[in-house]
């Protein structure tokens, strides 16, 4: 998802020259709105109306206070199970000094005022420490740019470290300062004597204590600071503490409303099918059987549409939809359609051919680009006492969010209303407007909590389809993709091949590291290693495929974590070293990395001997601002692999929501474990072969290891949590399998290999 931000950086710079920042006036309206400072918050008048304050005062862009002193934190990010609404609410409530029991959280609407300016600032000016004087101006520029770009993204493990740091806690602290000021003036006491606690302002000397709500009117007329004073972290009562997630109760009694649960009067249901080979369009359609089925309303060819975006183009190719009075009917009717799809030129492509192409392109090395070149690589290999090499590859993967893609649309009379669960509500609104030839203001988008996202729901194709479909049939339609369509029409985690060489000197020291892989995406640092190796040449070649790219939980880290952390293990084994000790020695320059690795080894009792058939493996991966080390224990009995235990240590700088971090680690590990054990999308005759959970399996309860998580609050900048757990499980697992069996796994998924193979000496499968 960081892909957005590399592109964004260039895009923003091009916008800045043309767009001056506009200092809007900040006048509180009848709805009592106050901007955060000037710009990010100065949406006052329009916001008050848009948020519809039923007896609530919008005292800040991100804060409402009602007459019962209930504070509502308005969260400009999507909830897909990562707990972001709660975590960001904690950051805001902490600095506001609010009573957490009286804090509610709600998702911001998909309107420009809630564009992700902080994400833009974080990525454009990542390392710039602005003087307080210019921060409002910088934020104002970013607000305008984010609004212009319709940027309201949840992804890249970004929310806490951008919006949390640069918006939520500022909003909380600034509002607290305004409340203190308002109380001081009202009471006629010095502001320095006014304190706050549990959503109350207090003047101890005169024994005064009033709820925040008493000053909401006054605060609404004030201008908040963009550079308020933050709390001393030692005084934190909400951040860093266990608080139950606010979205969970509705998820245990069936009352949580996902997009699939939307009901609109006169709504019809639809199912859809696209060309099995990406890019095909309809040549011939026989829909006679479908049209004759009771309950079928219409059969519609949805035209191809495409939109730009920071992920690149999203091409939604032609599709055939059946609209019916029931989803079941619509989907049964889709199965009867006889469609002849156009030739795309990719009909002869299969997975073996794609890997053969990767092999050719790596070997050819045409137009190889470098990520990192240090030292004298050629010389080191020429004079090496020992050289090892290996080729790795991993397959395409689908996301298979638990909730299949779906969206509901009502398009009529120059207006569109869309109900969807997505990772970029403003972007989806812009894209739907574009293909309907409307202005974004003509489109109202209701974003729902998602049944999983994992990067897939940043792509708007499913919302584009339903918008065109509703317009075509002239009534509200809920489009639900079958699981088969979900698996076969994804934007896939790319298949990648990666080739390594390592050189050792006569003292068995690792002196050179050479790596060439196919097709770079994001984050750019994914293939880099943290180890001290003097000579490094890491680079890539382009090897285009017709299977569309998608951001998949941890993006390029998901492949390179497996590659680099497996090959460093091979390097250790090659010189007869313990894989943990070998890594630790090469991390002497990186104490933060070393601490995480060491903690994992300690918690896992690394040196405790394991019995026959058992093995242990380790990995270390930095991603999205956090460091994660994992130790995996396995048992291999008669070729049957059991993943027994995973010990995971994360250093996210500061765990805002410790239980949330633990849950995200557990989740990222199981998501990566599914890929490591089972995940494989194959291509035959140009089309994806797999279709549902029977042939694209997920880890289930009986395969799920015990996971122990440990969090190190190191005090470094806050890192992400949603993705960093994923990259390290596959290599730690493969290294554990090697430890148990002597079989080196260089391709995934593991399930493809016969672990019963009895190696005479060190074996390699794959």
């Amino acid at each position, binding site marked *: 998802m960081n892909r957005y931000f590399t592109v964004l950086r260039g895009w923003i710079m091009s916008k800045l020259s043309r767009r001056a920042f506009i200092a809007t006036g900040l006048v509180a309206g009848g709805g009592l709105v106050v901007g955060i400072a000037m710009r990010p918050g100065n949406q006052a008048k329009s916001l008050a109306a848009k948020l519809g304050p039923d007896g609530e005062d919008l005292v800040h862009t991100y804060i409402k206070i009602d007459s019962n002193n209930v504070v509502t934190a308005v969260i400009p990010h999507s909830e897909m199970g990562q707990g972001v609404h709660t975590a960001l609410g904690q950051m805001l409530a902490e600095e506001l000094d609010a009573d957490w029991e009286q804090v509610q959280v709600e998702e911001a609407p998909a309107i420009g005022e809630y564009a992700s300016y902080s994400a833009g600032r974080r990525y454009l000016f990542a390392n710039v420490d602005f003087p307080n004087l210019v921060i409002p101006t910088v934020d104002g520029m970013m607000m305008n740019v984010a609004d212009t770009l319709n940027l309201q993204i949840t992804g890249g493990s970004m929310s806490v470290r951008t919006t949390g740091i640069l918006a939520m806690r500022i909003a909380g602290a600034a509002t607290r300062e305004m409340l203190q000021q308002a109380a001081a003036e009202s009471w006629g006491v010095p502001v320095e004597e006014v304190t706050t606690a549990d959503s109350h302002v207090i003047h101890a000397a005169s024994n005064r204590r009033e709820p925040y709500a008493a000053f909401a009117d006054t605060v609404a007329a004030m201008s908040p600071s963009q550079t308020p004073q933050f709390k001393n972290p030692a005084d934190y009562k909400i951040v860093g503490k266990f608080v139950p997630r606010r979205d969970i109760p509705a998820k245990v009694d069936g009352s949580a409303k996902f997009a699939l649960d939307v009901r609109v009067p006169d709504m019809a249901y639809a199912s859809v099918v696209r060309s099995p080979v990406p890019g095909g369009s309809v040549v011939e359609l026989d829909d006679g059987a479908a049209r004759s089925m009771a309950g079928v309303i219409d059969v519609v060819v949805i035209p191809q549409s495409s939109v730009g975006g920071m992920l690149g183009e999203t091409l939604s190719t032609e599709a055939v939809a059946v609209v019916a009075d029931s989803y079941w009917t619509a989907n049964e009717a889709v199965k009867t359609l006889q469609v002849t799809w156009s030739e795309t030129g990719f009909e002869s492509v299969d997975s073996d051919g794609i890997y053969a192409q990767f092999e050719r392109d790596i070997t050819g090395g045409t137009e190889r680009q470098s990520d990192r070149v240090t030292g004298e690589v050629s010389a080191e290999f020429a004079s090496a006492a020992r050289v090892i090499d290996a080729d790795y590859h991993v397959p395409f993967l689908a996301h298979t*969010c638990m909730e299949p893609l779906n969206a509901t649309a009502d398009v009529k009379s120059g207006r569109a209303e869309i109900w969807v669960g997505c990772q970029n509500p403003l972007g989806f609104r812009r894209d739907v407007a574009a293909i309907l030839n409307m202005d974004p203001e003509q489109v109202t988008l209701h974003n729902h909590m998602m049944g999983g*996202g994992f990067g897939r729901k940043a792509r708007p194709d499913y919302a584009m389809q339903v918008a065109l479909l509703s317009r075509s049939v002239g009534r509200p339609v809920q489009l639900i993709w079958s699981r088969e369509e979900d698996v076969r029409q994804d934007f896939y985690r790319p298949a990648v091949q990666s080739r390594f060489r390592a050189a050792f000197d006569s003292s068995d020291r690792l002196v050179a590291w050479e790596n060439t892989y196919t097709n770079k995406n994001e984050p750019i640092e994914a293939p880099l290693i943290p180890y001290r190796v003097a000579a490094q040449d890491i680079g890539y070649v382009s090897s285009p495929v017709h299977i569309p790219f998608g951001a998949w939980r941890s993006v390029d880290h998901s492949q390179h974590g497996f590659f680099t952390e497996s090959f460093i293990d091979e390097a250790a084994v090659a010189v007869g070293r313990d894989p943990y000790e070998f890594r630790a020695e090469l991390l002497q320059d990186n104490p933060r990395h070393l601490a995480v690795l060491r903690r994992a080894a300690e918690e896992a009792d690394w040196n405790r001997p394991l019995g026959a058939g058992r093995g242990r493996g380790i990995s270390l991966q930095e991603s999205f601002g956090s460091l994660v080390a994992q130790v995996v224990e396995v048992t291999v009995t008669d070729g049957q692999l059991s993943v027994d235990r995973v010990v995971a240590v994360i250093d996210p700088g500061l765990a805002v929501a410790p239980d949330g971090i633990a849950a995200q680690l557990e989740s990222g590990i199981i998501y990566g474990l599914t890929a490591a054990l089972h995940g494989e999308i194959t291509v035959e005759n140009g089309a994806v072969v797999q279709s549902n*959970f029977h042939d694209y399996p997920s880890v289930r309860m009986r395969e799920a290891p015990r996971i122990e998580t440990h*969090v190190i609050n190191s005090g470094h900048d806050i890192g992400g949590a949603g993705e960093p757990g994923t990259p390290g499980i596959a290599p730690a697992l493969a290294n554990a399998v090697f430890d148990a069996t002597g079989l080196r796994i260089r391709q995934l998924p593991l399930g493809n290999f016969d672990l019963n193979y009895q190696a005479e000496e060190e074996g390699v499968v794959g």
Partner: protein
Amino acid sequence: MSTTFWVNGERQTVDVDPAKPLLWVLREQLALTGTKFGCGIAQCGACTVHIDGVAMRSCVTPVSDVDGRQVTTIEGLGSESGELHPLQQAWIDHQVPQCGYCQSGQLMSATALLADNPNPSDADIDAAMSGNICRCGMYGRIRQAIKATSVASASDEPLFYSVAGVDHV
């Protein structure tokens, strides 16, 4: 053709194609959207309901099969007075759900398990719960929540995580 059955204690008569799966009757005819669609082929368990007390996949159960029978969905799991089922409370206590989409089905499988076997072993939990996929991977928490609710459980097992550190930002 009409089918009559009981859902969460209420008698319901629907006039739909008898082959229509119970899942879609619940969601479309009866407005009970807590039961989810995940795969349509009884592979993921998101659509699990109780039919005469047994956990079944409603996405492959024709509505005609439940004629005259008792169906319980997630909406009917709590008591009539609105109290949560002990497992629902355990799900909250252990912060089990992430996206939450599979959790109706997980809870229906887990409640059926405990009704049948109030003190399940790990192997029993594996057997009863492996029909339910959680793409957020909350299996450890599901297992803990079931164990915490089982008869033999004197107290909660601790969560498997620790937080250490001194400095904050």
